């Protein structure tokens, strides 16, 4: 049973550039959430995708956008990168219909903006 996978593992970008991160959910899961985790902090919710639509969004600017594909995989796009965007980006999958909202996290993508 494949868990949540993310790519790439690490990424270095320059200010102003754009980046795309990818996530494949755990087998059988239909919902993907993205989180940003700065060093020494808890994960901060960016947004959640279900049925290829953004279902919920956290307090992140429009520079952060996403997409979910018919196979439930997802992408996170960040435009006009800032130094403050450097963080670990975590993808988590879950099943929307379950009473529990247990999140299965992927290993993350470490983004460094220079």
């Amino acid at each position, binding site marked *: 049973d494949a868990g949540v996978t993310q790519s790439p593992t690490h990424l270095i970008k320059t200010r102003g550039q754009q980046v795309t991160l990818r996530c494949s959910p755990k087998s059988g899961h239909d919902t993907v959430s993205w989180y940003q985790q700065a060093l020494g902090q*808890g994960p901060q919710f960016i947004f959640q995708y279900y049925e290829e639509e953004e279902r919920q969004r956290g307090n992140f600017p429009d520079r952060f956008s996403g997409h979910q594909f018919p196979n439930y995989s997802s992408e996170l796009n960040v435009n006009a990168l800032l130094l403050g965007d450097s963080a670990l980006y975590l993808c988590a999958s879950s099943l929307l219909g379950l009473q529990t909202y*247990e999140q299965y996290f992927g290993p993350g993508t470490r983004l460094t903006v220079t």
Partner: protein
Amino acid sequence: GQQVMQIPQYQHVQEGEDFTTYCNSSTTLSNIQWYKQRPGGHPVFLIQLVKSGEVKKQKRLTFQFGEAKKNSSLHITATQTTDVGTYFCAVTLMEYGNKLVFGAGTILRVKS
């Protein structure tokens, strides 16, 4: 403002000692989840508490949900070096829909 406060921020214990982390909210919670993140790793789900006053145990870990559903605790009995990591509580707040809001975490270090 911060929706959920987690204390302490950091704890360093001798192997075999007990450890407790607390999560507090000013509003009534629908439920609370606990996650563990090993150094360099990603958060791993431990448990979810839903009912007022609920107590759940997983081997040496005991999880409690307050009667008013505004606070929770995670207690580890006789810590081992494998317990090292950051423990996060995460809550869903009705005014924020079903978004999961994480606490800042408690870093646990264990001296052997």
